[in-house]
């Protein structure tokens, strides 16, 4: 069996991890395992590694649609396929078609509902004059995700979003920090 990274050396390091109920496997040669930090217990997650390797299928898919290169920084689909990293913030727009599916497999949702610049979220409740996302926007975003979750019959997700909306509607501005 050849190493999944360099595809040249014999793979001698084999890793298995269950991520979200799915078995992910990884076969590396010794040199690549060291290079990827697999020999270090403190900074190793198979999931991180999989971003560049096991998830290559999804990344390949993500890279195969949309524009071939980012107009801002010149980063190409091939670069993304190789590294699993993007070139600049605008790449998210340039490769948005393919990225959407990839983000769905990786994350809970595809709409950001957390902190936004200028909102001073979680600290003060004076959010009105700043240009960031207002609680109303966030509520709307959540509402949209909720409808979508119900549409695809993902009730577990729907219940979670419902709770989040409830938390947001609490008079203190939704700060649920303990």
């Amino acid at each position: 069996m050849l190493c999944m990274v360099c595809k040249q050396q014999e793979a001698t390091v084999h890793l298995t991890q269950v991520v979200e109920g799915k078995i992910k496997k990884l076969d590396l040669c010794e040199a690549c395992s060291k290079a990827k930090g697999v020999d270090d217990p403190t900074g190793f997650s198979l999931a991180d590694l999989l971003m560049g390797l096991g998830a290559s299928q999804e990344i390949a898919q993500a890279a195969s649609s949309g524009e071939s290169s980012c107009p801002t920084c010149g980063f190409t689909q091939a670069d993304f396929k190789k590294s699993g990293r993007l070139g600049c913030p605008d790449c998210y727009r340039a490769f948005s078609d393919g990225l959407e599916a990839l983000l769905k497999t990786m994350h809970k949702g595809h709409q950001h509902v957390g902190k936004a610049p200028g909102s001073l979220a979680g600290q003060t409740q004076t959010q009105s004059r700043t240009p960031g996302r207002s609680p109303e926007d966030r509520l709307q975003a959540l509402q949209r995700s909720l409808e979508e979750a119900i549409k695809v019959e993902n009730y577990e997700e729907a219940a979670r979003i419902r709770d989040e909306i409830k938390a947001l509607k609490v008079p203190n501005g939704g700060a649920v920090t303990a």
Partner: protein
Amino acid sequence: MHLLEFLRPPQEAAKQSGPQDKIVLSSRVRLARNLSGSPFPGWAKKPERIRACEAIRTAVQELPEMQGAFAESMDALSGLDKQILVERHLVSREHAAKGTGSGLVLSKDESLCVMINEEDHLRMQSLKPGLQLHEAWQTIDTLDTRLENRLTYAFSPELGYLTACPTNVGTGMRVSAMLHLPGLVLAEQINQVVQAVNKLGLAVRGLYGEGTEALGNIFQISNQMTLGETETVIVERLSKVVAQIIEHEENARGTLLEKKPKVVFNHIGRAYGILANAHSISSKEAMNLLSLLRIGLDLGLFPGTARSLVDELTILTQPAHLQARYSEKLSAEERDIRRADMMREALRTVNRPVIPPDTAEPLDKPPPA
């Protein structure tokens, strides 16, 4: 100031305490941020990286929480310095490998660390002893909010904070707790716990992946997903999971002591025996045995000895920390010898484990007739 003069001595670093620190070694929240209109560090050309690094470093150093901070360019640090930062869990291995155009700002109390031009322009983290995930989030949230007044972040209303790797997009947040779980490992329940945690979409890190022993029985648990949930929801979930794991670990320790006291005392006694008498010991073996010594301390088998001694030795016996004590370059074999010397010396005043009287003779059966 040189890094080694800036950092707290290991003896002092080992003394910090926090809630639940018997099992939770530390809590950490890391945020990834990037500058708007600027390529990510991995794709940026060297002059662009240097420019971004300068701008960020100036902004970070101006923050009130960074007064008296250690700020340095990565190319100005020696290989040994960088390795020491990794061993103290202050920078990532990836960041330690960086040179020109990357930097580091570390607060005076070492609880806040900003890595500049790692994978993202900014990787800022708050590190607290014990279980303090909410506190760590609030601290880093404040720093982030102050910083956003000085820098313009790459942000999209749909995708949140834009990061070099799509796995971090959204909140850009990674919340993690470092747990010492020897009870679950000895009771062979760690597999189930790891699997259950994975099912919740959380990652368990450790050299041997899921289901096997991690070095020194230390496991790091963190969130994987960053898009579609608020920061507080993520922090809350991880806190709940960690609280449950603490309960499981305590139960496992209780059950082991009740059902298999000899197994527990055997492990601890042997660990003490080797650490107090060995003349050569590898870093890995030392970590694993120190973990057993730590549980012995938790169980009260070493009266008069503070747990911080084990934590101090854990820091001190790591390769770079050990090397830093000597001016000449040590080979791995020499390090193993010096490490063992240091252990014997440190344990000279620690008495053999005391087995509690009620468990010393658990077989209180009447003699056979």
